[in-house]
């Protein structure tokens, strides 16, 4: 029974369903399932950055776009095959992500958030204005992708590629966060000064967090390019950014499993919102707000509380610690956490 409800079972069920879905479901569900995998990747990457390393950056949608544009433009301009252009696009996105670590070393909180927001808007501007390279606001159609000699078409090929990428990137995130790297990220998030005094190189780990999230967003972007067969700037706007943030908050900040849950639910909710003809702005804005206010640790905490076998090694700062009986028995109160001195 325990095994049936545990996180392994959930992951096996999720990825098993995604693997087999194309054999049964109609094209709409297959497309939606592919989007699920993209958003899992995006939520994983963004969660490493804001949930674990605590760097509130607003440029994830821009990285996603850079990955998609990089991949598609290399195919379009240089006739590179997808298997070359996609990794190149990912590297470009990762490089752009790493570049953002430079201001992150000097800026924190609100300053970092808005500097990266300005960067994201600037990226959007470049996409629409550098017409000789990006084809401007009208977007472009990348050449079709051939999966020969495999007996699958582009749709199927990208689908299974997304499946493999989502699974591998989940494992990468999980393993990295259960290592000294994960502890260094959380240490920077919770108390950066103390982390540094224990020998954690702030710049190195902030850069790593930005690079990793850029990498993840880049992978999602490269897949997006192949999945849609069209790349235009409107997919990488502020709403997209809010959706990524929503996925992370929904699932649970600072939880790798939470990102998987969040990415999955985001897509489901997105489709439900459309089903009920509701305003997507109100839905995602409201979701973000309500979760931050009432369930800041995300849905994963519910699951952890009610089901056995969902423990994760590193957990979020607010992981229901407040509800446990204080360990202190010597009459000292637990200190208020302080923002620093």
């Amino acid at each position, binding site marked *: 029974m325990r095994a049936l409800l545990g996180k392994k079972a959930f992951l096996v069920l999720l990825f098993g369903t995604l693997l087999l879905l194309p054999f049964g479901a109609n094209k709409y569900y297959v497309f939606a399932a592919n989007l699920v995998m993209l958003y899992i990747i995006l939520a994983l990457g963004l969660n490493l950055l*804001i949930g674990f390393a*605590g760097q*509130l950056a607003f440029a994830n949608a821009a990285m996603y776009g850079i990955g998609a544009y990089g991949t598609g433009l290399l195919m379009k301009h240089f006739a590179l095959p997808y298997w070359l252009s996609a990794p190149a696009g990912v590297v470009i996105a990762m490089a752009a992500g790493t570049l953002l670590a*430079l*201001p992150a*070393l*000097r*800026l*924190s*909180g*609100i*300053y970092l*958030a*808005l*500097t990266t*927001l*300005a*960067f994201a*808007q*600037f990226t959007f*501007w470049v996409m629409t*204005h550098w017409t000789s390279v990006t084809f401007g606001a009208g977007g472009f159609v990348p050449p079709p992708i051939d999966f020969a000699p495999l007996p699958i078409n582009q749709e199927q090929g990208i689908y299974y590629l997304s499946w493999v990428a989502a699974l591998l990137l989940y494992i990468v995130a999980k393993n990295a966060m259960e290592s000294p790297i994960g502890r260094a990220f959380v240490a920077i998030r919770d108390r950066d000064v103390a982390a540094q005094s224990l020998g954690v190189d702030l710049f190195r780990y902030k850069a790593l967090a930005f690079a990793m999230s850029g990498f993840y967003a880049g992978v999602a972007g490269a897949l997006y390019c192949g999945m849609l067969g069209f790349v235009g700037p409107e997919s990488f706007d*502020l*709403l997209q950014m*809010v959706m990524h*943030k*929503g996925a992370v*908050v929904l699932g649970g*900040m600072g939880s790798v499993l939470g990102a998987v849950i969040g990415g999955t639910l985001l897509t489901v909710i997105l489709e439900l919102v459309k089903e009920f003809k509701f*305003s*997507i*702005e*109100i839905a*995602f*804005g*409201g*979701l*973000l*707000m*309500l979760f*931050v*206010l009432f369930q*800041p640790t995300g849905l994963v905490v519910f699951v952890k509380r009610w089901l056995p076998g969902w423990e994760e090694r590193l957990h979020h700062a*607010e992981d229901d610690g407040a509800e446990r009986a204080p360990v202190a028995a010597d009459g000292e109160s637990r200190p*208020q*956490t*302080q*923002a*620093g001195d």
Partner: protein
Amino acid sequence: MEMFSYLLATGISTGALYALVALGIVVIYKATEVVNFAHGEMFMLGGFLAYTFHVMLGWPYVLSLILAVLAAFGLGILVDRIAFRPLMQRQSLVSVLLAMVGLSFVLKGVARHLWGGKGDYIPFPPLVSPEPIMFGGIMVMSQQLVVLGAAAVVMIVFALFFKLTRAGRFMQATADNPKAAKLVGLRIDRVYMYTFGVGSAVAAAAAVLMAPLTLLYPDIGFMLFIKGFAAAVLGGLTSIVGAVVGGFLIGIIEQLSAGYIHTSMQEVAAFIVIMVVMVLIPTGLFGRRGMRRV
């Protein structure tokens, strides 16, 4: 030379708008160390409310202005209550920001729902004759002069408010030293609440003044927020004078770069200013040194 004077004059008048937006951002930031991400939406809602009172219900201009400003004051308090206060108690800046981003999208969606069926860009009747007039050798819109004058009035009222009123001095004290303010018995929660209210009220006042020039639409908030924020950053984020100077500078930079470099600079100048200032002179022109936590 004619070109320069026109660009400068327009820079000053749009700058006044940015300055008013920046003023609200700075007032709130000073007291709470949080940038109200939904500030642009306060402006937008202020404008739509005034439109509802003045145009749809046909109430007098001044009454509509006052009502819109009061309503925005209430909205500001709402932001404090739902996005700021509960989260600041948990001391989580990331959460506060995310909640505000969420709120800004909700407000945008709500505005679209309420006023979206009325057409695309809603004109707001100007206070004065819409004809351009000669002023110092160049033509200007009389509404621009009204805005400039009114902006000056708002700024002066603001400065006086901080200097002379009890509430203003409380806000100032809280901004300068929240711990000390708490020690001398200020109810800091209440000060925060009024700060959000006052900041939003300024935004609404600006909206009513500017709506005849900018037109009203649900998405106007973000553009103004980002420009106002650029102005605030340039001014150092903690200085009221800085916000005003920053606003005018952003307005002028935008105009001159669009006029002399390329018209597309009008859109992107603010983003570039934010990035450059943040990376090179993070304390801005008037900011306090050494107050930034890294």
